[in-house]
């Protein structure tokens, strides 16, 4: 029998994901947080988990390199990947926002927006008929306005502490986000019974949590 392959976004979603998997009896004994290993197998359930950079999860799933993935809605929006977005996992919640030291950027004809999410930023401001210039950064986006690189940023916030400490505040909220279970469209069809079994189990756990 083929393995079901699951890509999990490295970083903040890993712990909650493993917890969720454990609740449906899916454990990966050889996983440890300090391991350099990138794939882990549960032989009994015939499931293989791979850890990849969160921005790469939509690509792995869309192209069928893995059957399913666990990734933040932010990455799904940014990639525009065509996948089935079957379950809102309810953890990893955060917001996509515009943040800035002031609202002065609103008066500029074409403000400069620093972000890890250029497509989301462009789409959001396009809907408001506001032309922008984006600068794509890969980390510490909060620094950009202070360093004079941009007028504002588009980024995800969980608690807002980092923003505050860097003299930024939320000026606009773009979307509420959470972790999603996504499935490759062809896998869902060709491995329907195995995947829908897993998905139903996960959905049941999430429903149980929501009822509490």
């Amino acid at each position, binding site marked *: 029998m*083929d*393995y079901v*392959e699951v890509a999990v976004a490295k970083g903040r979603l890993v712990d909650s994901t493993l917890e969720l998997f454990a609740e449906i009896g899916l454990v990966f004994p050889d996983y440890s947080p300090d391991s350099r290993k990138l*794939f882990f197998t549960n032989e009994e359930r015939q499931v*293989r988990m*791979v850890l990849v950079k969160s921005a790469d999860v939509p*690509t792995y799933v*869309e*192209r*069928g*390199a893995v059957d399913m993935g666990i990734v933040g809605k932010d990455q799904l929006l940014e990639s525009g990947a*065509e*996948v*089935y*977005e*079957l*379950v*809102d996992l309810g953890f990893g919640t955060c917001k996509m926002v515009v943040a800035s030291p002031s609202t002065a950027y609103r008066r500029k004809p074409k403000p400069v927006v620093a972000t890890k999410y250029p497509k989301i930023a462009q789409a959001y401001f396009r809907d408001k008929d506001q032309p922008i210039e984006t600068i794509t950064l890969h980390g510490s986006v909060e620094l950009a306005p202070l360093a004079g690189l941009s007028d504002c940023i588009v980024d995800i916030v969980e608690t807002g502490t980092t923003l505050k400490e860097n003299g930024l505040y939320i000026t606009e909220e773009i979307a509420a986000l959470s972790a*999603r279970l996504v*499935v*490759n*469209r*062809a*896998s*869902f*069809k*060709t*491995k*329907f019974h195995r995947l*829908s079994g897993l998905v139903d189990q996960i959905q049941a756990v999430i429903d149980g949590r929501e009822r509490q």
Partner: protein
Amino acid sequence: MERLSRLVPNGVNDLSHQDLEHKQQILGEIAQLFKDGGYHQVQTPIFEYYDLFKEIKGTIEMDRMIKVIDTDGKVLVLRPDATIPIARMAASHGADPNELRRFAYVTSIFRMADDPQNVQSREFTQAGVELFGDGGVRADVEVISLAIRCLQRIGMAGFTFDLGQANFFKALTAETSLASEELLHLQHLIETKNFADLRRQVQDLPVRQEVKDALRAIPRLYGPPEAVLEEARKVILNSEMEAGIDELTAAYEALSQAGYGEFLAVDLGLMNNLKYYTGILFQGYAPGYGKPIVLGGRYDELSKYFGCDTKATGFAVYIDDLITAVKNQERQNGNGLR
């Protein structure tokens, strides 16, 4: 300075003689099947007026057509789709709309790369058929079984075909007065089986409870045909929805009688290009390959645009994807990550 003369542009690729021979062989098999089915191969120009594709709603995104400028300043596009030019051809020359006509094609399609990582994203080969002049389920069954035979003929194992019904969602939303933007958003949520966001979105819609229930149910209406068709009947709200399910049931029964039942599933959440399809639509999937390799369906409205009201259905096989899927299958017979 970049030496572009040594490079191949993004999204297109050379084919070695081995690869080309393999491709020709597969194309030969498929072309023979088409011919045996009474389909006559036709050819349409490699470039057409941009207006042809621009004015027909909901087929190819404007941005994805590859444009060139004619000597008189008019905008031309490299063939972004095979069906529209063939429908024009079928509608012209005083055609009789009730005459059964069968056309086949094997052709290159050109689209702007939506996928910079795919070597064949801008020029790819499609082989397909169009059947004009029959609005009945008999015609749907004929083209769907031909599509299945294509995959059988080239030795693909474990593939599945999903059958959908464009009118099911259309007739459901006819019960509402939602703006087209809202409908598109709902359609996207259903298409991506995004249950959580769909539930939230539907919650606040100004529509009757039965409509809400039906909208939420659509993405779940997927799986083994008999069970799904039975479930679908529970959310029917009007006679058009019922007619749609009746059609699908009749098609499924005929296909399974012909021995194709094992390949079929029903997915009422299948609704790509809803503006274009007007009845039964279908997609074929290969195991371990992330994209559909066959797309098809009924498009009865298209020929009206060319002044001839003839019913039509057809499909296209994405040959390059098919070849990759077959290769994966041959190479992979082991397990897991390649």
